[in-house]
């Protein structure tokens, strides 16, 4: 469940693509990509504090947008670096809902080496699609 950086969408910012055999995997990979993009060694984030994230959206792509924005928000508001632990997505008549758990720790500037800061997830070219039995998503980040 790794991410791929996409070069031809934006020069100023950063775009990435993730895939998953299920929506759960796709969203998990998307959240994981954020720390993979920001940090030189994302594996160094210790899983101390747990955060639950629950959301409901009519559209899948907006659910992904809101979900990823939560990780950006915690990074700035609480200096909390989060990585996903579990993601569960279900579909009903109202739309798509996500129940996820993420964990992480306060930014430690001695241990966490940042390659880039993410200001926001954007809606530019945002798409969650199913092709050849896989879900994939392309996301542009303002950095």
């Amino acid at each position, binding site marked *: 469940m790794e991410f791929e*950086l996409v*070069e*031809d*969408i*934006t*020069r*100023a*910012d*950063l775009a990435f693509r993730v895939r998953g055999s299920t929506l759960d995997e796709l969203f998990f990979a998307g959240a994981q990509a954020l720390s993979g993009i*920001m940090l*030189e060694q994302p594996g160094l984030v210790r899983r101390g504090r747990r955060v639950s994230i629950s959301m409901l959206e009519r559209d899948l792509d*907006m659910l992904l*947008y*809101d979900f990823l*924005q939560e990780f*950006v*928000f915690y*990074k*700035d*508001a609480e*200096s909390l670096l989060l990585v996903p632990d579990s993601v569960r997505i279900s579909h009903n008549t109202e739309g798509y809902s996500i129940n996820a758990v993420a964990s992480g720790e306060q*930014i430690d*500037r001695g241990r*966490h*080496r*940042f*390659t*880039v*800061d993410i*200001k*926001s997830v*954007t*809606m*530019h*070219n*945002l798409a969650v699609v199913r092709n050849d039995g896989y879900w994939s998503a392309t996301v*542009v980040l*303002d*950095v």
Partner: protein
Amino acid sequence: MKYLLSIYSHGPYVICAFVIDKESIMKNDMLIRISDFLYEVPVSYKKGMKVPARIYADEKLISTMDEAVLDQITNVCMLPGIVNYGICMPDGHSGYGFPIGGVAAIDPDGGVISPGGIGFDINCGVRLLATNLTADEVKPKMKEVVDGLFSRIPTGVGGKGLVRLSDAQFDRAMTGGMRWAAEQGYAVDEDLLYAEEGGAVSGADPAAVSARARERGRGQIGSLGSGNHFLELQRVSRDGIYDRETARVFGIEREDQVMVMIHTGSRGFGHQVASDYLRSFSSVMGKEYGLTMPDRELACAPFYSRHGQDYFGAMNCAINIAFLNRQLITHAVRSVFSRVFGRSPGELGMRLVYDVCHNTAKLEQHVVNGREKTLLVHRKGATRAFAAGMKGVPEKYMNTGQPVIIGGSMDSGSYLLAGEVSGGDAFYTTAHGSGRVMSRTRAKKSFNGRELQERMLRRGIYVKTGSLAGLAEEAGAAYKKVDEVVRATEKAGLSRRIARLEPMGNIKG
């Protein structure tokens, strides 16, 4: 991949003398050359365009712009209420929604406001401080100054801001900006004269700001951030004063004079304001206002609607927080210089030359079809460049035009320019930087941060950074040549060169 390409213009085909990126917009035969420094894309290019797109650039610069720039600026031309043209500056490059360097003047009566035309980093901007020190005086203490700045000014991700505001203070800062800073002792009264809008734009409405934006921004006020944000010590280049009289008015007395440039914005506060309203606009624009745009990053709402006015009020709060942020950093810079050189900021001549905004939407008066009109001018990665005599220009600069600061890459140079009367077609807007020619991903693969840092040190530029990988993304070769951008800017009549500045020391997040 690069290759030679023929270029279409009004006249016969000509062969370029330079190589062109495969994906360059020069490939597009809808691009019409109006002059050596201006190109136009007609409304027939794409269904839905209300006005043509105009790109200010020479052949070489436009050849470095990718096809996404054309796609994005022509999308901008579909915004309801857009007047005359969707405009792209010489440093334009692809972003999301608007290109970086994108400008749209919109008739507020019936037209829209779009958070994507401003960007997430609301009032990202740059200011220039003068000193009366020479490069020779600063060089022996360069390491002490740069290290002092790096330890005093929070940089990078997770850097805590210089101040921690209570709820009531935060509200007052949102409306007061630099004025609030002066009340708290972080600014001298003279500073307020030398910032756009006096460092405090009117129309800020803290009630329109979400709890999440407050929560996200509170801890970052008075911090530099990361990415392309920087604080740089510069010297006026040898033979780098082009208009000595105007330079003197701006505070540049001689070559080798040391200046300080600060580039940062509203940090997480502005990012969250933009996120909140982009999200709400995207859900209401169709349902409540019957609007559709080809890119959700161009989500918009009528300016005189509840949503439009709420965003305008919140965005103005973020503009003021960005002014405050740059002011708090200025205060820290003055303090560090004062300690290192053993003289007061006043004795060191540390006056603010000017503070310009890059990412804003402002109500301004412009002449359209011979009549003065109020327009909502969106600028994303572009600088206002008011000419001599225009309302809003400080009294001291009334005969010179507004100072414009174009920050180059950290190993090239920067420019101080002035607004020109010929800039009216671009709603008195000019470039804001060099503009990327290489994506961040490719830059990171192509350059090594440590090698770059060492190479710059050998050239006498001392760089202190929290992220060597981030430094690699900002390598000079990842950007257009600032001299070429500024030349095109001047030739196009958008602003005129006053002085060239070159880096001596730099701190980055």
